[in-house]
Each structure stands twice: as C-alpha cells, then as structure tokens.
C-alpha cells in the first residue's frame, strides 16, 4: 500500500464550514421564520454524467394514486407530492410541523399511552394546490415525459399539444422557502386556466391568494400563493386565480405553521402569523425572475447533493432506453444488474433526505409526503427502528448536515420526555414500570410526536437507541459541538437505566448480573420479559458511549465511573443450546415469530458493533447471530429487508446483502411490498393495501454503502461485502467513516484501486482490505491516497 499524504482539500474545508454554519443556524431559529433574502448565485454547472442522475417516466400521477405516482418535492421543511398531470397539476402540500394532538399525558387504564389522532396526534396535510389547464387534458396531449433530476432537485414534465411543446418545472427552494412552479412552452402556445389553493381540513375559502386556520390543538397554519404570467392576463376571481393567454407562468407557494420546538412555550410561537409570513415569502420570491429563483435553489441543493457520488458500473444502452418504471420491472425480471439504476436508487434516497430533513422536524414514517390527512400510524416517529433507520444513511452518504434535524428534535423534546417519565413511568398500571420503585432520567414510547408526547406503549430501551444513533453522528463527524448537545440526552438515559436495572443471579451459577426490567422485544414474543437482548445490547452501547462522552468532555467523572461499573455487570446474550440462535429473550426457546420483521436480537450486530466477524467476538456468538439472521429469511417488508441487508453486509455476505437490496427494488403492484412507480417504498399492511413507509428508502441506501465500506472508530474496511453485480468497476466519493474520516474509493475487478482518506477530525485509523491493513495518522483536515491493494 502506498501512502501519499496531502494537504487538506479546499472542498473539505468548505464542507466543514457548511456543517458548522447549518448547525448554528438550526439551533437558534424556529422552524418557519422570516429571514433575509438569500444570495443569488451564478449558474451552477451540471455534472458531466447528469443523465445518470435523472429518473424519468412516461405517465403522470393522479389524485387517487399520488402516494405511489406523485413526485416528491421538499425544501427540508415544506414538502409536496406533485401529479404532473398536464390538464391538472395537483400538489398535496404539508409542513413537517403540521401535527394534530398534544402532550398526551393521560395514560390509558393499562398505564400505556392513547394512540389516536386527537390525543397523540397525527402528521397531516396542510394545503392543496391545483393548476387546471383544461385544454391540456392528458387524453389530448402526446409525447408526455416526466423527469426527476436528482442532481439539481428539479421535477419536470413536458408534452406536445397541437404541435406546441409545453414544459413544466418545479422545486421547493430552501433559500427562498417556497415551492416554485414554472410553466413554459415553445412553439407559440398559451396557458389558460385556474389556480386554487385550499386547505384539506374543511377550511372555508375566503380568498384566492392565501388562507389561515387553526387545528383543534391550537396550531395555527397558513399558506399563500401568487402567480405571474407573461403575454396574457393573471387575475384574482373570488377564491381562485385565473390566467389566460400566458406565454409562460410562474406560480409560487408558501406555507407553514406557528409550531416552535420549545416545550416551555407549549411548542407554539405565539407571535407567528403563518398566513402573513407565507404571503411575505411568496411575494418576496415573486419579485425575483424565474431564472434567479431556479439558480438559487439549484446552487443550494447541489451544495449538499454534490458532497457524495457513487458509480456502480455502467448500464447497457437497452437499460438506459427504458423509463424508470420499466427499468424496475426489468431489474426484477432479468438476472442482469442495472448498475446506474441501482446507484440512482441510492441517490433518490439522498434526494428525499435533502428535501425532507433541513431546518425543521426530522423525517417521520412518511417524510414530508402525504396523500391524505390521516396517514397510517399517524406518520409519526417510531422509536423502535424506524426513525433511527431514517438517519443511518445521512452520514454514510455525505448528508451529515441533514442529521441535525434529529438531534434538534430530541433536544427540544427532552424536557417533556423527562417530565413525562418522572410523572408517569412508574404508574402502577404500567406493566413496564421499574419494579424497584426507583425512577430517573427519561425514556419514550414506541411512538413519539413533536409535542413532547408519546403514543402506543412505553418503550424503555427507546432512549438508548435514540442515544446510540445520535452518538454515531458524533463518531462520524467528531464534532464536539454535537457531543455537547447530546450529552444531556445520554446522561438522562443512563440515569433512567441506572434506576431500572435489576440484579439477578444466573441460574446454576453464582454470577450476579444486571438485567433490564420487564419489557417487550419489538414487536413480538412475550410482553413481560426481563433481560431482553434488545435492551441489554442497547444499554451496553449507551453506557459505553456515555463514558466516552464524559471523558471527552471531562464532565461527571464520578458518575461515569458508576456507569462503567454497571456496564461491566450487564448481562449479554448467549447462544441458545436449543436453537443455535443468539437468544432474543433470556430463554433457550424461540418465543416469537421465526421470520419476524424486527431483528432486535441482532441490534449488537447492526447498528451496534459488539458482534464482529473478525475474530474479536467469540465465534459461537457470530454463528448464533448468523443463525438468527438466516432464520429470519430474505423476504420481509422494505425496512426489514434493509436491516437484514445491513446485517449481512456486516457479516461480509455480499450475496445475501445484495439480494435483499434487489428484493426491495421489486416493483410494488396492488400494494405488495416493494418499490412504487415513484420509487417510494411500499409496505403491504394487508393483501391489496400497501402504504408508503419511507424508512426503507433510507435504510436500503445505508445497506448499499455498508457493502462498500465498513468503519468504526479507529478502523476502516474497504469493500467488505462487494457484490458481484458491482464488482467490475465503481467508485464512491464522500463516504463518512466513523472516527472522523471521509473516504473516496475506487475499485476494479472486485479490488480497490485507490482510496483517499480525509480527516474531518480523526487522527488515527487502520484501513484494511482483506488481510491487508495499514495504520494512518493524519492531522485534522489532511488526506492520504492509498493505492496498490492488489499486492
């Protein structure tokens, strides 16, 4: 291996600056707020291989199937699904904070949380925008085409009507904080039609250009629209905007709520008038030219999108000729890989994250994309895998800045989570209460909302899993600022577990261990099992992370010693002599569903790091983990397949890891598990009814990266599970590695050809490929390029 140290690259410095800037901004501003006009950059050049970053279709979506056929837009806070129907553009719009419900602190008779749309609450739609162009009915146009340009964050559609080519482009701009629709044509055409912006909660429309209303929980929300055309007329008529004879048309939409991430203020900004703010924003944007708005958006978007790139090899011309939906079918039907489609699937996940996780609440079960007011499972935050999975790919794919929404959410909720835990967790009706009677710190329910409230059942280990997720972001970035922010969360979770752990003597031995009190291993098996592997592993990781954090920040030394001592006494799972599996419960028997979707007993394999197939973990534990994973099977829901794929990647089984990815690419038909027309992952809740659940759209890309690069602090492994399908040649750029590094990696014929390792704060790491390993020492900001792995 060759080592050639380099000076820090300009790009790395820039990205560090960007990260710090965003973090500082997000920490202080409420979600929907006024800010100064953004800088107007010059044109940003397209990447050379732009077509690889373009998804395209030959049919629009309609209102009845928008969740599968609508194309998503988002600026990190407001999002929309767009139909792109020539005769009737429809946008279903919402804001990440558009939530019913509230604190929800009156427990049900069983000591658990109510889980309804008025008590716990639900994510819901905010507005609906239609642009009707009656003369452009889909039945009357030809050559329809629709594109999602992942590299620029643009949704376009085009068609021909009577010899005129009409083109429509739309995006949600983060800098201008509005959604922009731009209608153009070439060939002497004109646009005539109607624009309507309405609510979806029975609001009485009184004006064409904006509306405001208040949800029963007191949340104020509002939206505004303005339109500008050239060569024709645009005018307000009652509750609609009419346009006629326009050569082109620009429609600008803004929306928001008066939510504030502040428990003390009841999660409201009393001074915020959402309708007025939306009007201000759309008017400000409308004074800019369509070109300036577009440039501003593209430059902003590309700053994030361009932090990472991926090539898995070249597709054939025949594959490139197919539209995205046909390509998904072909990939399922034919044995040949479609490397460009597969890479684009990952980039689509990045598009969703850039569009869905910036400056507001984090990504929930559906991100910012709804087709109705009442999403399944409330579109909430599920803390027993789903919200964590949403963020597994953030750092891995160069989107560390998008992670901050999760951190900020947890911090804003912490006062309320702590209060509710103290008041309600030891309620005598709660089967999960601490039998010791002690109570401290905080935990969560399986579902959480943005108002400090929980829903469904208590989820004691949820605090640990949130903390280990937040911790990993620290491992990737090495950001002390982040560490300081999350420290109170870590400490509070440790306090909770210090009060909860029970001492028990293992049967037939004199060994005393600490086990978690009665709990439910998600989401199957006995409801009241002590020492479930899920909790033991997560608490073991939490305690370790906390001790490292305390040492790093030089805080609470005594308490960290206490936690370290508890950690040494924690029971860790053994392999069942009966099943040969790593035990999920402290029982040799299989007490749950063999092929259950959750992989809770493997939380120490992934995302945890305790179980490693590198000789450092007893081989029977690795074999037991492999046996559980094998038994769970290869066919499950999208997110469950993604988790399986990540575990197989950790076990360096490229074939299984890749096959699970391919399984997730399967086109969803009639609601079956798989990928919808618009690439949303569909979860089949019952035969014939599938719903959108976004976690697989993020978990699957995380698995793809995990096949190419494994890292933990101090250790990086190249191509740990490179599938045959991608082996011929490829490259990945901008992958974060735990320990504070970033890696650019190229390979050919299944072997690395070059790996460039940048330090973003890390100092020492080994870099391994197969049996070859090298230790690097770098100053923060420095980089090295490694070659000649074949030897």
């Amino acid at each position, binding site marked *: 291996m060759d080592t050639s140290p380099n000076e820090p690259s300009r790009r790395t410095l820039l990205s560090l600056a960007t990260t710090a800037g965003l973090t500082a901004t997000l920490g202080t501003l409420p979600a929907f707020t006024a800010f100064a006009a953004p800088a107007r950059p010059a044109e940003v050049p397209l990447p050379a291989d732009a077509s690889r970053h373009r998804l395209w279709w030959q049919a629009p979506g309609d209102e009845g199937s928008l969740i599968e056929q609508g194309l998503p837009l988002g600026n990190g806070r407001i999002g929309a699904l767009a139909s792109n129907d020539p005769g009737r553009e429809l946008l279903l719009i919402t804001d990440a904070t558009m939530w019913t419900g509230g604190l929800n602190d009156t427990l049900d008779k069983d000591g658990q949380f109510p889980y309804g749309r008025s008590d716990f609450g639900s994510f819901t739609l905010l507005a609906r925008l239609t642009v009707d162009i009656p003369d452009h009915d889909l039945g009357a146009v030809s050559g329809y085409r629709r594109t999602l340009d992942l590299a620029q964050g643009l949704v376009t559609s085009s068609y021909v009507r009577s010899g005129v080519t009409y083109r429509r482009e739309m995006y949600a701009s983060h800098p201008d904080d509005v959604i922009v629709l731009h209608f153009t044509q070439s060939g002497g055409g004109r646009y005539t039609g109607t624009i309507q912006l309405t609510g979806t909660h029975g609001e009485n429309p009184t004006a064409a250009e904006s509306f405001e209303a208040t949800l029963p929980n007191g949340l104020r929300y509002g939206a505004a629209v303005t339109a500008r055309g050239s060569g024709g007329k645009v005018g307000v008529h009652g509750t609609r905007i009419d346009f006629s004879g326009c050569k082109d048309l620009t429609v600008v939409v803004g929306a928001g709520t008066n939510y504030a991430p502040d428990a003390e203020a009841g999660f409201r900004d009393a001074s915020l008038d959402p309708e007025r703010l939306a009007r201000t924003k759309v008017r400000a944007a409308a004074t800019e030219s369509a070109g300036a708005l577009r440039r501003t958006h593209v430059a902003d978007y590309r700053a994030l999108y361009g932090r990472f790139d991926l090539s898995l090899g070249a597709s054939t011309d*025949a594959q490139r000729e197919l539209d995205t939906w046909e390509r998904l079918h072909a990939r399922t*039907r034919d044995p040949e890989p479609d490397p460009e489609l597969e890479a684009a699937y990952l980039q689509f996940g990045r598009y969703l994250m850039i569009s869905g996780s910036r400056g507001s609440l984090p990504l929930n079960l559906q991100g910012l994309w709804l087709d109705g007011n009442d999403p399944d499972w409330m579109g909430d935050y599920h803390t027993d895998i789903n919200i964590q999975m949403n963020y597994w790919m953030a750092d891995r794919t160069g989107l560390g800045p998008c992670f901050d929404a999760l951190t900020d959410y947890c911090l804003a909720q912490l006062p309320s989570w702590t209060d509710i835990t103290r008041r309600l967790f030891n309620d005598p009706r709660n089967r999960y209460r601490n039998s010791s009677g002690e109570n401290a710190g905080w935990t969560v329910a399986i579902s959480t909302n943005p108002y400090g409230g929980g829903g469904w059942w208590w989820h004691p280990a949820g605090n640990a899993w949130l903390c280990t997720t937040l911790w990993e972001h620290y491992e990737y970035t090495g950001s002390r600022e982040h560490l300081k922010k999350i420290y109170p969360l870590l400490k509070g979770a440790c306090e909770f577990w210090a009060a909860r752990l029970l001492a028990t003597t293992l049967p037939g031995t004199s060994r005393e261990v600490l086990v978690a009190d009665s709990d439910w291993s998600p989401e199957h098996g006995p409801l009241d099992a002590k020492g479930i592997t899920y909790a033991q592993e997560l608490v073991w990781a939490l305690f370790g992370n906390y001790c490292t954090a305390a040492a790093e920040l030089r805080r609470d030394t005594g308490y960290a010693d206490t936690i370290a001592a508890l950690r040494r006494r924690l029971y860790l799972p053994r392999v069942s002599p009966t099943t040969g599996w790593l035990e999920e419960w402290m029982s040799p028997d299989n007490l749950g569903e063999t092929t259950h979707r959750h992989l809770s007993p493997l939380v120490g394999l992934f995302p945890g790091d305790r179980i490693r197939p590198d000789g450092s973990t007893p081989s029977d534990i690795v074999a037991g983990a492999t046996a559980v994973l094998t038994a769970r099977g290869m066919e499950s829901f999208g997110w469950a397949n993604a988790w399986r794929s990540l575990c197989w990647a950790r076990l360096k089984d490229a074939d299984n890891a890749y096959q699970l990815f391919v399984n997730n690419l399967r086109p969803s038909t009639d609601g079956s598990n798989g990928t919808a*027309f618009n690439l949303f992952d569909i979860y089949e809740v019952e035969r014939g009814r599938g719903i959108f659940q976004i976690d697989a759209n993020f978990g699957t890309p995380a698995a793809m990266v995990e096949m190419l690069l494994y890292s933990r602090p101090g250790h990086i492994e190249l191509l740990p599970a490179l599938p045959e399908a991608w082996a011929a040649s490829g490259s990945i750029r901008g992958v974060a590695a735990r320990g504070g590094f970033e890696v650019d990696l190229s390979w050919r014929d299944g072997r690395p050809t070059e790996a460039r390792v940048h330090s973003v704060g890390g100092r020492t790491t080994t870099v391994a490929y197969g049996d070859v390993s090298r230790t690097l020492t770098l100053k923060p900001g420095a980089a090295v390029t490694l070659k000649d792995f074949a030897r």
Partner: protein
Amino acid sequence: MRSSSYSVLPARALRTVVVLALTAGVTAAVPAAQAETSTPPDAPATAAAVAAKPYLGWTSWTMQSSKYPGLNPKGDYSYLSEANVIKQTDAMAAKLKKYGYEYVNIDAGWWMDWSWKSQFDEYGRQKADPVRFPSGMKAVADRIHSKGLKAGIYLPVGLEKGAYNDGKNPIWNTDGCTTGDIVHDDLRTTNGWDSAYKIDFSNPCAQKYIDSQARMFADWGYDFLKLDGVGPGSFKDGDNYNNVADVAAWQKAIKTAGRPIHLELSWSLAYGHVADWKKYSNGWRIDTDVECYCNTLVTWENSVDDRWDDAPAWTDHAGPGGWNDLDSLNVGNGEMDGLTKAERQSYTTLWAIAKSPLFTGDDLTKLDSYGLKLLTDREVIAINQSSAPPAEPVTASDPQQVWSAKNPDGTYTVALFNLSDAPASVTANWPTLGFKGRASVRDVWNKENLGSHTDKITQALPAHGSRLFTVTPRGTNLSWTAYEAEAGTNTLGGNASVADCSACSDGRKVGNLYAGGKVTVNDVVVAKAGTYQIKVAYISGDSRSVLVSANGGGATSHKFASTGDWGTVNSVHVPVKLKAGANAITFDSGTGYAPDIDRIDVQKTP
C-alpha cells in the same frame, strides 16, 4: 359449449325484479281486441340490406333501468313513454341523424302499465299500454319515420305467461290454432326470467304465432326487433332455455311479414351457438347489460370494463349481416353516465373498433359538449362503419393493452388502452401489428398527426384511458420462425401434456397447464439480444393467465383473453427478453390455470 357460469351480478339481481313483475302480469285480464290492420305495410324508405354495417341509434332501456333522479317518476322503468320516445326522436333527428344515427328503439315495457302489468290482445299478442303510448305503437313509428329515422321495438322470447289464457287464445290468421297448441303440455318455461312458456315448434301453429307478431310489427311499421332473454345465454342453459328454434322462426316470420326488420338478440348469448346467431339474426349481445341499475346510467366496473375481456373471442364472427353487440354506448353526458372523460373515450373507442352497433341510451336532449363530440366524431364513426374487420387485442389482455385491425388500404386502426386505476404509459410495438421500422401515426380523437415513429409509439394514458390511432406503415415486413409447443425437443413440467387439437397448427398443442404445469420451448434462436414481441397461439375457453419467462429468468404474468371455447386458436404478443443464440421460453401455470399453448412465432431480430 360456453356455460352461463357467471357469478351473481347486480344487474342480474335487478333483472329478477323484472321477472316478478312479468309474472304478476299473468293474472291480468286479457283486454279487448285492438283494431287491427291486415293490410301489408308500406315498403321501408331505404332498401339497403339490413345490418350491412353496425347500426347507429338510441335505446330506451338505459334510462328506464337507471335510478338517476327524475328519470322514472312513475316507478321502475317508467321512462318509457310515448312523449319521451318522441322527445328523443326529435333530438336524434336534430343532433345525430346527420352522423348516421338511425334507429329509435323502444325497449321492454311498451305493453305494460306503470306497475309493469302486461297487456295482450285477443290473439295473445302484446298490446300497447294505452297510458304509456296513448297514440298506439303505429303512430309512434310513423312519428319516427316522419323524421327520416327507423323504429325499433322489443319482445321477450317465448309465449309470455300472460298471453296463454289457459291455452284458449286463438292465434291470429289461423284456422283453429290456439295458444294451447304452441306450448308443451307441461308448460315448461323459458327465457332469461322464466317469464314465458317455451314454444313447441313441432306444432305448425307455433310458427303462425310468431308470424302474427312479426306481421303486427310490420303493419305498425317497425324496422327493428330486439328479442330478449334468448338462450342459451341470458344466464340460462339447458334444453328449456334453448331458443334457437324461436330465433329461426322469427327470421322466417320476418321474411314474410312484408317489411325488412333487423333482428337483434339479447343478452349474453352463448358463444357455443354463435353459428346459429349468425345464421338467424343480425346481431347478438355478447355480454350482460352494460347498465349499472344504479344512480347513474352505467359505471366503469359494472359492467363497461368487462367488454375488454369478453369481446375478443367473438371478433371473428362479426361481419355484414350480423354484428357483435356490446350493448348501449352511454357516453353522452358525463354526470348522468357516471364515467370520467377518459372512460367515456375508451368506451366509445372499443365499441367503434369492435364494430359493435353504436346505440346510445343517453338523454339526447342533454348531451354535453364532450359527449356530443364523442358520439359524432366522423373519423371514429367511419372506423366503425368501414369494411375492415373488427379490431382484436394484439397484446395480452393486461391492464395496459393494444388492439388493432388491418384496414383494406394497408393502414392499421390501433387502440391503446390503460384499464388500470392510475395513469400509465402504453406502448404499441409495430411488430405486434405485423411490420417493423417506421410508421406515421394519426391521433384520431385529437385530430393530430403525430409524425413518424420507429418500431413503436408510447403514450401516457389516464386511468381507464385510451388512444385511437391510424397507423400507416412505412417499414418492412416481418419474418417469423414458428416453434410448435408440442415439439419433442421441448420440456414439459408438472401435469403438462401434448393433446390433439384440430384447429392447431400441426394438429397438436400442449395442455393441462395447471397447478405448476409448464412447457419450455427450447432452442428458440435469434440473431441478437433484445426484447422480442413473440406471438403466442393459444386456446382457452375462459380468460386465463400464464407466467412467461426466458432462460430461467424472472417470469411476467400475462392474461390471455378467452378464445370462446376449447377448439378455437387465437394469437397475441408478449414481450420476452432474449439473448443472441439459443433461448428457452417457458409458459408456466404457476398456482393457477393457464391457457393451452399451440405454438409461438419469433422473429430473427427484434
């Protein structure tokens, strides 16, 4: 023979209501004889051969059958009245006549009062209800003729129970025949509602009874008769419901009635008797009622969309003198029809290209502008009326499907359909039409020439939407290589077996493709890799799906339309991705039942 193994449909349940009403009519007193004319009627205004082309017109039944508010204020089916028929006649003359619409067809009930009690003359013939039709049926026909249109009337098949009168009613213009002479001693019943006694044509009096009815209609001036409840069909099977003799008697009676009368048969006629229907009638309803018997005239699912599956088997049997009748075309008013614009266009497109009669059941006084456009598109009507054969599917009957017919001038009529509930793109590949290379495309509905397209055209279609093209080939012919399914070099799996098949090429096929039965056609050699539209010749008495795959790759399920029975071969194309050199193409029944496979045809290059 095709059995009436339909599941219970809403339409059928509603038909039951009619049965009860008709049965109640039996107890009605036979009214006094009407004044009769025995003078042969005038010759019709036009002397064109009956049903030389699919007819165009209007039927009263659609609005009679609907629960749409206000249509039937005097009870079920009460839309039918003299005033409404005249109103529709005038509207047709004013709006549709110039496009070729001709027939004004009075449906069931003209001889029944508002409570659906039937009335008969002294000869056991249906007699106009004096409240519904105060001027009598002849006056109405005269009124229709005065507008330059033709008049249609309706009867159920058999001797209606109310006409029997203990067998004592004399048969008109006979020497001593009575209704008792023309039925079986056991008074066995017939027709789709069992509302009539089966007529025994071994007694010469029976023909005389039919003659008397035909003569009555001719005397009144009717040009068209819908004979309803005819079996086998009309959800009935078995000897009692075999009305072939009735239909033959009607044809014979019409010949001597003194006036050409178009004889149309209804409903869901048995495919197994298609030769009889062709021999004795001018059209036959291939399916159940298109009407939904609900708050609109029709709905997409009940039962407009059934036609895409049911029409293909019948295609080859339509032609001058007799046509496949897909039932009424209710596209004239979106709100009343209960259909989207896209559905209305698809409905019209299928009816036009399948060469179904184009008769609407809409309120012609309330056609909306889009409905009028659909019903009066001269290019579409010309496609329906042309001498080209009816179109049939050239692809599998999947949610996205393509139909085509080759026109005498060498062009093709091509329709793209998207039957799924969401928008989708649909592609017509030229090889499925019979050529490859370039072709110019005209969008018929949109009156737009779409220019030259190579190898295929793809368009975005709305949910339940369609496109109608005239495609002018400018490319080259195809050369196919045939591979027999039963060839000894192929591989059979599961229950699959070779069977004789007189209609098949080389006289054999592979059948028993069910529950895992499969056939792999080996050594299919092509020059280069690509997606091929292979032509599959198959036999299937009902609509069935098959999993098609190549070289052990993933399979795609395709639905093949019924060929009508297990002795008829049809062909459709399915896409298969092949590699250069030898390929193996598998047809697998999976867990269900697949069609029998006769052979496949594959091109050398895609």
